[in-house]
């Protein structure tokens, strides 16, 4: 049966290793759920129509646009956000590479790039520069001119970064 957008549904999902349960409107986006209900505002909304990639999170280890995903679609699934990346109170290798390569300026698009790159490096720990460009070109950045982002991901890969351990480990 069809559900109205305002109808409230129960949802339960795991974000960064922690279980969240709530009752939300069917139309509530996953991005709003993550940012407001789970209080994890590191995931940003740049366009809300699935183009800019700022809101990218990992949904069962694959990059997903949280602005185009409904919270109820994440029922029972594992989500990772930018808040899961740091190792204790230290930047992880990828984050450190972004800093060292000056791969961010305003930082608004950064979470999306980090999550997309995390998925890439988990799937292919030794990507070429072309692999990186092909995978990460779906995210927009208005500050950096992109080259330093590619270099950061290259550096992280070169440092043998093991990013398979998300916040749920």
């Amino acid at each position: 049966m069809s559900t109205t957008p305002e109808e409230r549904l129960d949802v339960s999902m795991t974000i960064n290793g922690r279980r969240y349960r709530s009752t939300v409107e069917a139309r509530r986006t996953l991005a709003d759920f993550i940012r407001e209900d789970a209080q994890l505002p590191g995931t940003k909304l740049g366009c809300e129509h699935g183009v800019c990639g700022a809101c990218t999170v990992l949904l069962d280890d694959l990059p997903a646009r949280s602005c185009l995903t409904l919270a109820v679609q994440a029922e029972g699934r594992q989500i990772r956000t930018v808040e899961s990346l740091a190792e204790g109170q230290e930047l992880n290798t990828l984050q450190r590479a972004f800093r060292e390569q000056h791969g961010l300026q305003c930082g608004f698009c950064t979470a999306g790039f980090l999550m997309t790159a995390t998925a890439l490096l988990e799937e292919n720990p030794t990507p070429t520069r072309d692999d990186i460009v092909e995978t990460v070109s779906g995210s927009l950045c208005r500050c950096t001119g992109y080259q330093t982002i590619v270099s950061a991901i290259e550096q992280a890969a070169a440092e043998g970064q093991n990013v398979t351990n998300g916040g749920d480990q």
Partner: protein
Amino acid sequence: MKKLDKHQHMSTPAVAARSVGTRVLRSEDPRLLTGRGEFIADIDLPRQLHVAFVRSPVAHARITNIDLSAIRDADGVALAWSGKDVAAFCEGLVGEMAVEGCVPTTMPLLAGDEVLYVGEPVAVVVAESRYAAEDACELIDWDFEELPAVINMDAAAAGGPVANPQLPDNLGLNGGASFGDVSAAFDQAAQIVEGRFYTCRVSAAPMETRGVIADYEWASKTLRLWSNTQMPHYLKYMLTAYLGFPEQSVEVITPDTGGGFGMKAHVYPEEMLLPLLAREVGRPVKWIEDRRENLIAGAHAHEQYVDIAYALDAEGKITGVRTHALGDGGAYHMPPWSMAVEPWCAVVMTPTGIYDVPAAEYTYKAAATNKTPVGAYRGVGYMAGTFARECLADDAARALGMSPFDFRRHNVVREFPWTNPQGIVYQEGSWRQTIDALEEMVDYPAFLHRQAQLREQGRYIGLGLSCFVESSGESSATSLEHGLGDVYHDTATVRLNPNGTANVTIGLSAQGQGLATTMAQMAADTLGIKVEDVSVQTARSTDHAYGSGTIGSRGAVVAGGAVARAADVVREKVRQVAAHMLEAATDDIELVDGLASVKGVSDASVSIADVATAIYFDLDSWPKDFEPSLEATQAYDPSQAMFSNGGHAILVELEAETGFVRFEKIYSVEDCGTVINPNIVEGQIRGGVLQGIGASVFEELAYDESGQILTTTFLDYGLPTMDVAPPFEIHHLETPSSHSASGVKGMGESGLIAAPAAVLNAVNDALSPFGVVLRDLPLTPEKVLDAMSVATTASGPDEGL
């Protein structure tokens, strides 16, 4: 020309560089990389309500009826206002600039009897959630009679249907001036080259949209306003001037900001409305713009024609330049910059560039149209003016049979200080060296060889050159130099703590430029301490240091000057006490690398940390009559206009089958005087150049004949993506400013200012076998393919296709 009186706050201390000039990693990054930045959308206040706007779906119409009762009855709605409701509090924002021929407009906060562009706010709704507010917007009941939409700026400027009844001639701006004997130059010219160049309408499109939160507490009359503005202090002033909130109780708070690029350097109706709404409903209200709103209602940029002509003598020297700019200003002057921001800036700031031109004449016009108002975007006017000038330089080089490097070298200014025909003084520069450096970087003979070889294979590469002079460190002096009287100055506060660490507060809000890092470098070197021991707050609140806005490539220069001046006051205190502790004369004490030392006496030193501790806790360390505050606030405003310079050479290939412009490599030369942090300067270059590539090839805010905007998502409005972004080779020249702190000059805008000219010149170079010269942006695949195919059928290239 009126000259600026020199004041105390215009001198800066001499400081030995330690941290300045090095690639200090940014202190901002750990927060931003871990999702711990705090952007405006991340801020939630207890009891807050959410705001959404009803915006005009038509370009030009008379509102005959507007009924918000269904909205007001909707679930969760606290308040809904139309233009009539808000006019009682504020008639609107006046936009004008003190230049010849500017006719002001008043932009209502919500449309009154007429809507003048698609996206103009018509009604505002306050509700329990953003979802509820947007639902309620759908319930508006209104009728309007459509009026003729004025879309074309040429037609508008010629008269005819009126876009905005406040501008019956459709002209928001109309003026001009002449310097030197321009007529003689053109009458006696051996050759005249001229062209009409078009820069299309674009959006700055920062990744973070605009946002405002207002919280008003009636009992204390306290207004707190969060805005991701580039001009928090100016916004505070406007809130008191237009709305009457008591100045002493207004605080503007600027959180982390996701890019601004000029779009956030305005005062918008939304920023005025939210405080009124908060006061009315007695609860905090929050508005976060969505991307569609940002593309249709955030300030637009750039759209204008620049007609430019050079008079050339028999030797190929430019003897005169005539420039006329016609801008499409949109429906209103965008406060505070007005329609002058493009056409006036283009003709006043840029016609001579790096060239030794003795006579210049300009006219400017801005036409009102039924489109979104045009405002500031990184390098206002400079982009279009540089585009026209540098592309005409290539036209001239072609006409003279010279290389683009040789033509520029033939005409470049060689002696400084140089005064242009308008009387603008350029103190120093590496203008000729830029041309030489670029020619060497691209290995021009090798390029020509490769170009010829590839042409034989039916491949078309091109090299485009563009040299710029950028007015930087926007100041009272710069304003006066360009014929305005705007007053700028900023303050900074520096405090040395008991353990010898420092806290710095500046009056500029930051949008990603890394000001917290570069200002820590400036403070560290002045105080003689380590950069890691300095913590900088940018203008998060107007309760602290004062600032005239993060605009006009002024951050590093102006905040840097204020920081150095404030740190110098503290430094003098440390020197006095160190001298007393070391039994030496104050003049002999120097502060470097964490030590206060007696000059020339190797073992006579005390750590700065120990001096600071002593000032706080040890009266015996004090000299007689000592005043122990280790905190100082000082102002800074450069005493003279200053100009950075540089150039770009851009290498492209045109895909013969698709007309797509592929960017192979960017060569950039930048001279911004002393470089505080090369990482940050290079980041500004790369980002700015890519925006220039976007404005040249990928981006255009398109309208149809009825004035409907067609580009309302990032699917229709194409920003450059990673797969089209070229690699860079960047070369720094350093010609320090003679009067700024540490010799720093500003450079935040030069990438966007100069890249489009290099792109068009590169494309035209690649098209040269086809005998076609393009002059209009954007260089879409259609235009490029037409240029290649039309020419093929008409005359045909030399090589077979």
